[in-house]
């Protein structure tokens, strides 16, 4: 797309009243604006597409939110703006909005025939940059490019603030992108955007303050460097300044390091707390299946990849990731996913998640810790992971991440991821993506392990079959833990610096597109999961209270309402899972449920009845544990809300299992079992 932000060009288009395609002459802007439009109503979709084409935009349309998310994840930088309907059957438009904002940070325009004030307000609070009332007139569409310009400008400004050093980093990037050359921001526009996409390594952006800001991408390599530096200094003595010096990465600021360190510490804390199931590492919960995980998955995907890339990260690192990623102090150790809290965490994403996955060790993680989630790492975790997943409801985020990216990592990882997410999610994930952990993708966890019912899962579960594919849900006792999430969406993950930050562990998942291959087919399976969702809802009823906990786990540990985006995401994720669409807090529970479902489903799916049961038990245990740990209350990261009441949950899960589509759940959700149940 050619966007020349020259003033002149703008003036042409600014006279919108008389704007006609023919007016766009010399400088093409905004012609070629790449728009993604999402609406379940085929009539509207067609009309919109035509209108947008008339405006000389490049249009891609889809009628399902999950499809949209997967498309976006696959083409991280392929779109400039998204237009979405509010009411959609598979996912609430606002959830999608959150996901997109967190993962891709694209401007999103909402639209609806509903013009009630409260709905419009909701759009605004969720971060929509505009709200159109149907029937949409072409004149309104002619102006949408302004949102793109505005957003870029703001992003660029943020970058500037974070440090001029970054500019240097950006320069090279920009050269690639010749399209954008804003008169105001000399080619820096793209920089910020590009930074997000392609660079993982030194694109540190200062994202501490803003949620939606482009996140510093803590790639796997970077994170490893960080971890190495911390280890060298000693965790107690590691101060940002020294770490920065040791790392010696140009463009990295002390603030970046400081925030990352904070997350990491949390992650570690969490890890140490959850010592039970190492296997938890399996991010089973990251049921990649749901793109809804959105944030989660993105993280996971990223992390996973990171992990994958790095190979098995030592448990330690994983733990660190988790801690870091999780950033949720509140989340009890079980919630490895503290990632959620920190949006920045996502930046870690890769590094963090990776660990989970890379680490075959998962075990550490599993221990209730969220790490389990992250662990997409070796499936051992699976049973444990489940357990851990539970904790880390949040880890789900991680898991997801892991899942996403991982895919390849290790089968274990997958399981970890899966497990982490939540047992529930597994079900989902399983359904979707037959995430055959198997080494498909070494860490392509693709979808963060939904298994843990991680919030991420939840979100993704909602229907994102595709996503699941990516993540090897393998929640189900995938001993192989290679969650290999079919991360078809993996591609997204990596890029998803999941603001959810939950992915500390999951980062491994961020394997971009690694999963894809497998995932796609698997994801389809996810369709099967849907039923699990449903089931879960029932389950959730059983234990509403658990959700609180769960939410924590699930929602990546987002500080509950802190980062609206994140929390929303989390919530949405959670909700998604529970298909309850309630974004706030309430969702959490649903997410939890869904996650549990996954795990349950996953477990079953794999046909490892035993494992499954074990996992389920683990999950249940985990859930219970989670509850007791009280982790959940605060952090949305309760990814593992799975605590529903073991019996109920188990029962429900088991029941679901049967009904769950036989998605080849390779998810190694088994890892969930905190109790180290052999997968």
């Amino acid at each position, binding site marked *: 797309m050619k966007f020349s932000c020259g003033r002149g060009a703008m003036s042409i288009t600014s006279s919108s009243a008389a704007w006609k395609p023919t007016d766009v002459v010399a400088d093409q802007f905004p012609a070629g604006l790449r728009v993604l439009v999402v609406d*379940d*109503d*085929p*009539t*509207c979709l*067609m*009309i919109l597409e*035509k*209108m947008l084409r*008339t405006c000389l935009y490049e249009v891609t349309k889809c009628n399902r939110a999950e499809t949209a998310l997967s498309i976006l994840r696959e083409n991280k930088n392929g779109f400039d703006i998204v237009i979405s*309907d509010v*009411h959609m*059957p598979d996912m609430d438009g606002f959830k999608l909005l959150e996901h997109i904002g967190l993962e891709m940070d694209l401007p999103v325009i909402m639209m*609806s*025939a*509903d013009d009630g004030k409260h709905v419009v307000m909701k759009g605004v609070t969720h971060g929509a940059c505009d709200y159109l009332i*149907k*029937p*949409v*007139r*072409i004149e309104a569409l002619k102006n949408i490019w302004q949102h793109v310009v505005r957003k870029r400008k703001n992003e660029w400004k943020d970058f500037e603030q974070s440090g001029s050093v970054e500019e240097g980093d950006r320069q090279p990037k920009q050269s690639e992108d010749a399209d954008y050359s804003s008169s105001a921001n000399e080619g820096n526009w793209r920089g910020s955007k590009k930074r997000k996409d392609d660079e993982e390594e030194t694109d540190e952006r200062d994202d501490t303050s803003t949620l939606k800001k482009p996140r510093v991408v803590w790639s796997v390599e970077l994170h490893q460097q960080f971890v190495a530096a911390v280890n060298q200094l000693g965790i107690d003595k590691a101060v940002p300044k020294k770490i920065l010096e040791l790392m010696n990465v140009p463009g990295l600021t002390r603030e970046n390091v400081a925030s990352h360190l904070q997350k990491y510490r949390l992650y570690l804390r969490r890890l140490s707390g959850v010592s039970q199931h190492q296997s938890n590492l399996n991010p089973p919960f990251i049921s990649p299946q749901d793109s809804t995980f959105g944030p989660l998955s993105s993280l996971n995907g990223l992390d996973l990849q990171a992990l994958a890339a790095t190979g098995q990260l030592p448990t330690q690192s994983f733990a660190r990731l988790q801690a870091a990623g999780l950033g949720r102090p509140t989340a009890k150790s079980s919630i490895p996913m503290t990632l959620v809290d920190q949006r920045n965490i996502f930046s870690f994403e890769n590094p963090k998640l990776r660990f989970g996955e890379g680490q075959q060790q998962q075990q550490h993680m599993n221990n209730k810790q969220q790490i389990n989630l992250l662990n997409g790492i070796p499936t051992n975790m699976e049973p444990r992971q489940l357990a851990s997943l539970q904790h880390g409801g949040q880890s789900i985020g991680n898991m997801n991440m892991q899942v996403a990216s991982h895919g390849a990592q290790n089968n274990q990882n997958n399981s970890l991821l899966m497990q982490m997410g939540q047992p529930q999610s597994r079900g989902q994930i399983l359904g979707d993506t037959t995430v055959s952990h198997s080494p498909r993708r070494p860490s392509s966890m693709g979808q963060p392990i939904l298994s843990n019912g991680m919030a991420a899962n939840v979100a993704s579960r909602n229907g994102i079959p595709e996503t699941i594919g990516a993540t090897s849900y393998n929640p189900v006792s995938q001993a192989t833990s290679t969650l290999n999430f079919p991360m078809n969406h993996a591609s997204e993950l990596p890029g998803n610096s999941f603001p959810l930050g939950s992915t500390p562990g999951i980062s491994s998942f961020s394997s971009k597109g690694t999963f894809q291959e497998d995932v796609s087919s698997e994801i389809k399976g996810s369709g099967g999961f849907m039923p699990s969702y449903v089931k879960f809802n029932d389950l959730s009823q059983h234990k509403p209270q658990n959700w609180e906990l769960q939410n924590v786990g699930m929602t990546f540990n987002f500080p509950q309402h802190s980062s609206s985006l994140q929390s929303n995401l989390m919530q949405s994720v959670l909700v998604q899972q529970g298909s309850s669409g309630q974004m706030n807090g309430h969702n959490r529970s649903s997410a939890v449920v869904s996650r549990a479902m996954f795990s349950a489903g996953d477990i079953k799916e794999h046909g490892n009845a035993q494992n499954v049961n074990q996992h389920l038990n683990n999950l249940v245990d985990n859930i219970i544990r989670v509850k007791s740990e009280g982790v959940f209350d605060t952090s949305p990261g309760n990814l593992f809300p799975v605590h529903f009441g073991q019996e109920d949950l188990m029962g429900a899960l088991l029941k679901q299992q049967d009904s769950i589509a036989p998605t080849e759940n390779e998810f190694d959700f088994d890892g969930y079992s905190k109790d180290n149940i052999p997968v």
Partner: protein
Amino acid sequence: MEVAQMQRRLVDYTKTLFMEFLGCSVLQLQQLQDESNPDFVVEVVSLFFDDSEKLLNDLSTALDQPNVDFKKVDAHVHQLKGSSSSIGAQRVKDACVTFRNFCEEQNIDATLRCLQQVKHEYYLVKNKLETLLRLEQQIMAAGGSIPMIEMGF
């Protein structure tokens, strides 16, 4: 019939339609149509028909249940409202608005009545649109082109 004559008929008919039934959307729709997409209006309108029929069927079924799920009904109506407004079926849309209000009150009788009303409006507009399309097709078959209608709004 001569092409010019047909075209005149079409223009008049469309204007009437616009006045009575459809909003400016229908004209917008026509304007969207061009050489590269000559069947645009036909496609969209057909899509609208199919989609709406399905929605109406779903609505009938949903309201026929012993325990009516009003949320579902509301979702369907909302969708119908959106698509009908996009295509310009103003009266259908208004009927939908009323329908939704009764849905909120969970008033079965009223909603059933509303459903009838919506169906009625829908068939009316369907009839009109089909006539419009037929006119257009006749013109095209005779070698003429669809005149652009400037409504001046």
